[in-house]
């Protein structure tokens, strides 16, 4: 099956509506040739921080971030025009296709200003979806400034806003750029006004560019050195560096990308990662220019790659502080969070024989993405698969899509869920990330569900809708703040359970796309949760079970059974579809038995034709999953994801 049986392999609208970047910081393949090159640009010496600028680019999808980055690379001679693949930064197939940045990455540009000063510009690219907001925040923390790219024809798009706010929270200097001024529809004045109204940023000095035509590139470079402050740092202080990206390379082990705040990094040094406690000896240092170019040292303000023979990406957590093991810093960088999966789902091969291939594939992905977890799981309906943990729904979709695309697998995904805390009657506490693992009703004393604190930026005109949505999702309002007359910041305590299915999409439609969402885990709270099972002719279809709030159960049960009735084909016997909580049936639908399937014609001895028709009929059955004696098409397992739409 070419498409995901379960979820379409093509980018879904909800994906393209995500901000300018998204996705896990994960790769299977080494991202660049890792053969360490010579140093044609003479970038060996430790730089004077005054000539360093660290910045990222914030833009809505399609507003020209990657094209602008390409022009900067080209203009500074970092990448020759000849070597330039269109959109250099987005070199993963998936990214190219979606036109988005999934991974953070950094590239060093060497820029000679008109006054003759040579600058080291570190362009730090960021993902941007809410699933990865922590990683965005760490990338931004490595910068002193950000270039805000707004399409002069489209104006400010909602998804840009959240990242601009993150940048402003990090006290970054913002360089506004109005791109695509070559388009007939470009309206720089209106776009400028929108930046001021919507974001509250002075855009009077915004630079007009057409990245496509190469217009304004010099002005952008000039503004970067002029408007973005240089980094500060003490070269003599103990090493203090921010780890903001890492990946596994088969030759060098884990490659860490760091921004140095204080001290220096040199080969042979023993380093320690403060949060994980991992110690290692630096083998090599390099800068990404953009291929890895070996250097002798990295000093304050610089961005570079560290190779220290570390085997596990999990030892190199984003946001961790890298310090000197022999002379550790007393002030590790603030803001570190251990990234934990928030959303769990079962991934199953559509065809059982692909189980081994799926195992190999998840192992490989895990090598590069420690935020993705997996363990073997077994479903009566779907056979052998894996229970996987993800940062969020987009992360889940990306992992699934990469598994299907890069490893040629066809997968069935079960409904995403969060992890619940279960207190049993015999005094134990369990963490349950799968409905199948829930103990029997009688053994449960109390259940707790995770809450998150959602922070939503929204134009005031959509505030009412957003509040209504949060209330519907069992949210508890914490505060509303207004910035000016047009924008509000709402924070809500929400059950994660209500977020995992469709909250983000619903939020977007409630605000016509203009709300942005950020969330962080809060705590666990006691709740009246139930496990809703779907029974088909009495047999529980384990892959369709969900844990949800009791108030939701009846509605969901009805919806689910109705959807299933549409998807389960008529069989030679009646099929009863029930939604049940324990033994209590709360919804019931019937798929009537196939009463007649007989076509008599078999003319003139053309048996071959008849046989081929029957074979086609049989082939359709082969792609179904068997529950008891009922054949269920794979789409039906998605029904659970689609209710509520």
């Amino acid at each position, binding site marked *: 099956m070419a498409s995901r049986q379960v979820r379409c392999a093509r980018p879904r609208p909800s994906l393209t509506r995500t901000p300018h970047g998204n996705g896990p910081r994960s790769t299977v393949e080494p991202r660049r040739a890792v053969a360490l090159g010579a140093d044609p640009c003479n970038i060996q010496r430790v730089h004077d921080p005054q000539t360093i600028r660290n910045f990222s680019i914030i833009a809505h999808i399609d507003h020209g971030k990657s094209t602008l980055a390409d022009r900067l690379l080209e203009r500074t001679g970092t990448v020759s025009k000849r070597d330039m693949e269109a959109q250099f930064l987005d070199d993963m197939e998936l990214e190219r296709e979606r036109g988005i940045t999934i991974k953070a990455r950094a590239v060093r540009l060497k820029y000679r200003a008109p006054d003759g000063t040579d600058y080291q510009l570190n362009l730090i690219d960021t993902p941007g979806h809410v699933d990865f907001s922590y990683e965005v925040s760490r990338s931004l923390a490595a910068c002193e400034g950000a270039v805000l790219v707004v399409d002069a024809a489209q104006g400010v798009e909602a998804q840009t806003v959240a990242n601009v706010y993150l940048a402003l929270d990090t006290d970054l200097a913002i360089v506004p750029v109005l791109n695509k001024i070559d388009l007939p529809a470009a309206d720089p004045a209106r776009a400028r006004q929108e930046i001021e109204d919507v974001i509250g940023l002075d855009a009077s000095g915004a630079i007009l560019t057409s990245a496509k035509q190469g217009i304004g590139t010099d002005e952008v470079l000039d503004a970067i050195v002029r408007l973005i402050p240089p980094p500060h740092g003490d070269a003599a202080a103990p090493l203090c560096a921010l780890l903001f990206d890492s990946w596994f390379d088969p030759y060098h082990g884990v490659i860490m990308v760091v921004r140095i705040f204080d001290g220096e990094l040199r080969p042979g040094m023993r380093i320690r990662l403060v949060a994980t406690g991992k110690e290692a000896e630096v083998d090599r240092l390099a800068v990404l220019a953009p291929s890895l170019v070996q250097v002798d040292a990295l000093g304050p303000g610089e961005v570079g790659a560290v190779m220290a023979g570390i085997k596990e990406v999990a030892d190199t957590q984003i946001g961790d502080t890298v310090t000197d093991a022999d002379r550790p810093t007393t002030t590790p960088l603030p803001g570190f969070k251990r990234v934990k999966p928030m959303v769990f789902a079962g991934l199953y091969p559509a065809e059982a024989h692909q189980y081994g291939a799926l195992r190999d594939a998840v192992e490989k992905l895990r090598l590069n993405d420690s935020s993705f977890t997996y363990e073997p799981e077994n479903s009566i309906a779907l056979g052998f698969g894996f229970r996987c943990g993800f940062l969020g729904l987009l992360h889940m979709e990306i992992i699934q899509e990469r598994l299907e695309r890069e490893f040629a697998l066809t997968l069935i995904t079960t409904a995403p869920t969060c992890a619940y805390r279960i207190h049993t009657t015999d005094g134990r506490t369990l963490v349950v990330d799968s409905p199948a693992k829930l103990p029997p009703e009688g053994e449960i004393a109390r259940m707790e569900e995770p809450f998150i604190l959602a922070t939503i930026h929204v134009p005031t005109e959509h505030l009412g809708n957003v509040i209504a949505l949060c209330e519907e999702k069992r949210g508890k309002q914490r505060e509303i703040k207004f910035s000016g007359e047009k924008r509000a910041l709402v924070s809500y305590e929400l059950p994660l359970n209500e977020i995992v299915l469709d909250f983000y999409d619903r939020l977007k439609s409630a605000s016509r796309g203009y709300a942005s969402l950020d969330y962080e885990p809060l705590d666990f709270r006691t709740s009246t949760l139930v496990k809703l099972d779907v029974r088909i002719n009495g047999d529980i279809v384990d892959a369709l079970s969900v844990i949800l709030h009791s108030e939701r159960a009846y509605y969901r049960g009805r919806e689910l059974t109705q959807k299933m009735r549409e998807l389960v084909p008529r069989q*030679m*016997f009646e099929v009863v579809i029930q939604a049940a909580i324990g033994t209590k049936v709360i919804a019931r639908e019937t798929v009537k038995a196939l009463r*007649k399937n*007989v076509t*008599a014609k078999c003319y*003139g*001895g053309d048996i071959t034709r008849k*046989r081929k028709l*029957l074979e086609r*009929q049989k082939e359709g059955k082969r792609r179904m999953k068997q529950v008891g004696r009922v054949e269920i098409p794979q789409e039906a397992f998605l029904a659970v994801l689609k209710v509520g739409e």
Partner: protein
Amino acid sequence: MSATTTFDLGHGGAASLYVHIPYCHAKCPYCDFNSYAATEWPEERYADALLAELAAYADMPAWQGTTLATIFFGGGTPSLFRPATIACLLDGIAARWSVAAEAEITLEANPGTVERTRLAGFRGAGVNRLSFGVQSFQPDLLRTLGRIHSADDARAALAAARTAGFDNVNLDLIFAVPGQTRAAWAADVAELLACAPEHVSAYNLTYEPGTPFHAWRGRGELVPLPEDDELWMYEHARAAFARAGYEQYEISNFARPGREAQHNCGYWRGVAYLGIGAGAHSYAAAPGWGERWSNERIPERYMAGVAAGGAVASHETLSFDTATAEFMFLGLRELRGVDPVAFAARFHAPLETVHPEVEAFRRDGLLVDRGGRLALSERGLLVADSVFAMFL
């Protein structure tokens, strides 16, 4: 087929002969048979090609000693051919082949096109069974079906057949035609019984890809009957024919005792058959697990092929799996079912081992054991295609 191939036909030298006449006055919009509307046709040239093809087969060692138990002229509309042509063909067959004394020799005829005066000629040529495509007695349904005859034509044709001396006549009916009511079908069944044929075929209309009906349904211009109506019509016909003394011996076929279509039964029972003519299909039960082949479909290309030494367009050697599946889904079309002993004898393995799904069907009441044979149950009959598919 190479002339040097030698095999016995697997059925004691008995075989059937199918002769395809691909021409019609008009092409019905539901029909996907290999037929072509024509106002004139190369009757002699085509008959010569048939005889040439037949002669080539007769010379093959594999077909030496074969006795033809049945001969069937199908189409198209074989009754468009003159009785003299049919006589010439039957003479040609008899000259080169051994034809059983009691051989069933059927000719398909259209009530609207047949020249009733010809029927006696066909009888005189040796045809002893007629099959009329009546389809319906309702003028509006005949129009929907694109038939160019009337209900009166059908009745007159049958009367003429009797006069000509035919005592074995089949009438075809079609049900589940768009616009057809249950009452209209009941009326068709009653009218048909009033004609008192020896044999009835009642076909559920199907929408075959490539036909106008298929396209019209796709565009919503034809609305198929609800399943419940189709089911009612089938059940009504089964009951009415049974009451009138016709035994249902196959999914769509009913006959007075002893008047089953032997030629068609041959298909279900794995009897070897030679098909001659444009697009005709043939089957040999040996060598191996059997072979199927078919001719060029376009009449001109068929005739050119025969002239050039062979008109076979496709050929298939059956695998064990295919042959055992065919045994089941063909044999189960007959209500008497399949004989497990015959299965084991042909395939050197017990039926239950080769087709373990039989047990589940038994449990579900879709297959039953009846008189030592395995057959579709009442309920299995209604979902026969679903049952058949499981054997593949």
